[in-house]
């Protein structure tokens, strides 16, 4: 009997002391958290994709609140939420944001199985990164898509898939939120974030091969051979050819499609344009 009472007193005493210590500590070392952080966090989509450049939505909320105190959140953006979420956040924080162009990932390679025949067989680990470190891939092009789908694994939004027929990844533009995960992971740096364009129309050079024309064309029928015809044709100085490769600046391109017509290898993609009659034109294969 006695021992039970002692036990109760001792344990109760310890509990009481501990409670006091805890209370004092919680008051003394309390961390103030800005309530706006939680509010901003509830507006963000909660995808924790890292597309904004932070570890997750919570970290992004903290950054947004901190930056808003400096007067601007222009340099921060949530690709998943897009402008809608960003303007809600801005309203909450009492500042205005300019709307950026919505972007989308594009795969700058048209080395389909027919355009770019296989020349060897790779038997190691099926990963673009592994293939890229130990060799140049299975075709004669040392620049283009390796086809193991590292980008597909990287995408958290199910927006990029392998087309089994072409062996190339295809971006589903309704799902792609331009978080850039695929583009960061692609060891060949062929995925680029570009402006979606008015009516989702865009024009880009679908090739990254920097070999000389003859070699590039031997490896792939659809390679850019750096002939410069497109650059000459462009009235808006949107095209530069450097190191046997053409690049179209999407900020300057006015979608006139002149370059598309002159490219001898059809390396230039024009996406989401209506197909005119009697004119052969390439369209990006939809997933």
């Amino acid at each position: 009997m006695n021992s039970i009472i002692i036990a109760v007193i001792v344990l109760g005493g310890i509990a009481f002391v501990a409670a006091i210590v805890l209370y004092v500590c919680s008051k003394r070392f309390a961390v103030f958290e800005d309530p706006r952080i939680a509010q901003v966090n509830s507006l963000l989509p909660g995808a924790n994709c890292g597309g904004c450049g932070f570890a997750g939505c919570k970290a992004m909320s903290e950054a947004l609140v901190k930056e808003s105190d400096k007067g601007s959140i222009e340099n921060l953006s949530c690709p998943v939420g897009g402008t809608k979420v960003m303007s809600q956040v801005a309203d909450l924080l009492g500042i205005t944001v300019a709307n950026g162009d919505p972007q989308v990932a594009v795969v700058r390679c048209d080395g389909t199985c027919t355009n770019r025949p296989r020349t060897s067989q790779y038997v190691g680990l099926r990963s673009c990164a592994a293939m890229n470190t130990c060799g140049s891939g299975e075709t004669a092009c040392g620049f283009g898509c390796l086809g193991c789908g590292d980008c597909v694994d990287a995408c958290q939004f199910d927006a990029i898939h392998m087309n089994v027929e072409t062996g190339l990844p295809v971006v589903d533009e309704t799902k792609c939120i331009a978080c850039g995960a695929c583009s960061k992971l692609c060891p060949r740096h062929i995925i680029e974030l570009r402006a979606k364009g008015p009516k989702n129309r865009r024009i880009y050079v679908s090739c990254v091969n920097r070999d000389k024309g003859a070699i590039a064309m031997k490896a792939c029928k659809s390679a850019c051979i750096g002939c410069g015809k497109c650059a000459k044709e462009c009235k808006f100085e949107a095209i530069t050819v450097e190191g046997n490769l053409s690049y179209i600046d999407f900020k300057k391109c006015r979608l006139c499609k002149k370059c598309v017509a002159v490219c001898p290898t059809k390396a230039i993609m024009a996406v989401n344009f209506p197909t005119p009659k009697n004119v052969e034109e390439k369209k990006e294969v939809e997933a």
Partner: protein
Amino acid sequence: MKIKTFSIGGIHPEENKLTHEVPTQVAPLPTQAIFPLSQHIGAPAKPVVKKGDQVKVGTLIAEAGGFVSAPIYSSVSGTVSKIDAAIDATGYRKPAIFINVEGDEWESSIDRSNNLELVRNHPELTPDEIIERIKNSGITGMGGAGFPTFIKLSPPPNTKPECVIINAVECEPYITADYRLMLEHSDEILIGLELLMKAAKVKRGFIGIETNKPAAIELFTHKCADVFDTTEYQVEVVPLQQRYPQGGEKQLVDAVIGRQVPAPPAIPVNVGAIVQNVGTVYAVYEAVMKRKPLFERYTTVTGKQLSKPTNYLVRMGTPIQLLIDLCGGMPEDDNKVLAGGPMMGKALISTEVPICKGTNAVTILSGDEARRQTPQPCIRCAKCVAVCPMGLEPYLLAKLSAHRDWEHAEHDGITSCIECGSCQFTCPAHRPILDNIRLGKSSVMNIIKLRQTK
């Protein structure tokens, strides 16, 4: 005599030394020779010739492009046809010098006579002069890795070389180029060794040879007794148990002198040893005594399906296809052509790739030999751990790499991996362990480099 070996790990793949008894043949000149500018670790060489220039055998065509770099000499005489991109062993196009072969005219400075002059008769050569000649002749390690040789002879401060070890192990299956070189040029190799010992200012030398080369062991034991008996140098032939990767520098040091080289950035000289491949030693002899820069090498061309596997003395820049033709042509199969042996060799995407300073073999594996089996889940048998000669946990490193967890991969020693492939070879679940590790190792190395330049 006690047969030594390294202390942890190791495997024993099928030997397949098809060309052991095939005497070396001199390969004919190609019609065009290709010299990639990066044939060594370090900065690529810088061309000093231009299109249209006439060159002779032994003419300097590219100079060293930095401290860790090596010059390149022409192996043929003729006209420089272009400086352009050419596919090298990596499969990528890299800058190279192309020379159209016309005749076979050598630089007059090269001594082509056959008399053997011993270094003892050349007391005027100081260690620095020897190193200078090695440096100027473009010698890099000829066992495959391609590290410029002169750097190994000028060890970093706080290290003190105590011995030179000749790596005559040749533990890779199929390859026999070093073995044939040893039988055919033993005297020259011993002179080369003496030059190296003089250059490194050490008195002790070892020659490590695996026991599957009894003729070489016997020959060198006798010769060493003869040659070094009356000198201040002590050289010992060390027979080594057959075990892969005994030819790895660190494994060899462990096997021969029983010292363990610590993790990178430590190198063998941190424990007092300078390791040189036997082909390198021969090249050192030629460079120092004959003024002959490095432009030809011993290479084994081999494969079970080749009709005539042979060892060749071949001029660098010779396309591999030419050698395959000499051996009876490419067998009909879905072959895999490797620059190097089956364990460490690099699969080629084209047979137009030229023989370079580090190409010790061309191995042709049939589709059946090369085919991989479907990977299964890891069964935690720990076989990979048991065979890793670097004492790593390969299954774990592979997993960390696959998850891109570079931090832990670095912590668990991924940079120590010597890419010997023992783990992958032995895995009963056929997991692509080394593929993953290699990926992680290169990423971690990049991260370390970035950190250091910060």
